[in-house]
């Protein structure tokens, strides 16, 4: 019995175009909000570097709060990668893990599982920064 042929016939194909469009628009909107915040902070007299950090912190705070109120997962289902790729996705993955493992305690629950989803981003972020740093040092002298 050739199951795979029949299965393939009925399997749902991902809506690549619609999902891509949603991701692009929603991800873009997150970026616009970030940019507006950045300019607002600069206008308020905060230095450009500090304003950048403050903007990212604000976006992370909002994403974490939305996660805690149970809204972020619904937004994420709609926006697809549009909310997963920006820093909001990173914040959500950590807050969601912290909430999920709260019952198992501060140490064995939250601390142990906080990076359950975000760990991969940190590991490969550091590894690729390290490799690129070496390449830059070798070819450009630092």
């Amino acid at each position, binding site marked *: *019995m050739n*199951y795979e042929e029949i299965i393939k016939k009925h399997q749902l194909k991902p809506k690549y175009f619609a999902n891509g469009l949603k991701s692009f628009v929603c991800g873009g909107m997150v970026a616009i909000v970030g940019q507006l915040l950045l300019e607002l902070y600069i206008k308020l007299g905060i230095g450009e570097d500090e304003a950048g950090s403050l903007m990212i912190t604000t976006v992370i705070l909002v994403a974490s709060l939305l*996660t805690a109120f149970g809204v972020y*997962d619904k937004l994420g289902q*709609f926006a697809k990668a549009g909310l997963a790729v920006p820093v909001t996705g990173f914040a959500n993955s950590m*807050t969601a893990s912290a*909430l999920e493992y709260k019952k198992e305690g501060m140490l064995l629950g939250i601390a142990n599982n906080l990076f*359950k*989803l975000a760990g991969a981003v940190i590991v490969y972020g550091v590894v690729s920064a390290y490799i690129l740093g070496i390449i830059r040092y070798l070819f450009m002298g630092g």
Partner: protein
Amino acid sequence: MKIGNNSLKFNGVYIKDSSTAVGPLESAGPLKDYFDYRFPDLYCNADSWEKAEINLVKTCIDDLIKKTNLSDTEIDFIVGGDLNNQDAVTNYAVRDYNIPLLGVYSACATSAEAMIVASSLVDSANAKNIIVTSSSHNATAERQYRNPTEYGGARPDSATFTVTGAGTCLITNQKSDIKIESATIGRVLDAKQKDANDMGSAMAPAASQTIKVHLEDLGRSAEYYDLILTGDLSSVGKPILIDILKEQEIDIEHNHNDCGLLIYDRKKQNVFAGGSGAGCSSAVTFGYIMSMLRENKLKKVLLVATGALMNPIMIFQKESIPAIAHAVSLEKI
């Protein structure tokens, strides 16, 4: 008594009564009136997801004992399981009862497996009264098999939504109006599906195999049953099952339905391809189907509980998802 290759024919095994408890989304679904207990939130009066599922199971068992008017000593065994590691919920739920436990696991086919084990014990006169239980909880399943509940990653339309619910019944040798007539024990079938977000595709071949073997073993055609009810094939698995069986000249298009498609209104409720979980088939069977049989709206029902034997570690090791389906034939006398 064994009949054919993989089937059992029972003589004098009955369901005395049943009890079900469900969570908020199931309480808002089309079958809401058929459940005994409806909890308004996912915590079900507990402070963690696992304890919530334990409460669902205990609520059902307490209610069943009350309904059947039996004491602890009159109930020989509890046979049951859930989707949590080490069958944790079932083990914890029954620790306050003075009744021996046989824990079983067949993923979402646990409901039918427990019924088959219990029916065999009663059929062979090794027991008179057995409580059968199985449960699942959306949040305990999510955190164990997938991601934290509040994680915002998008899920595809083929994903299923784990039912928050528990179902129990009392299987007895005393004659009642619902008979457990026969059963077929499923074989593990691996259709080489690897997508953990598409269990319907992984399980449909196993369901087709069990249905085919059951009909052959008992010498029946598919029309014998008023309803062939799969556990949680969802909107993806249902057409696959019908097509696979059609190729083998078995037509179940008009008498097939799926617990996962019955328990939710997919147009109004955001449950992707439909409901799933060990509590899906048990809540639907022991709630809705029992009522339908009692009211003579159905006479002969074949429950084919389907289980995707998904293990996150094996998935990470790039293995495919084997599946199993166990069938139990229920008849109104």
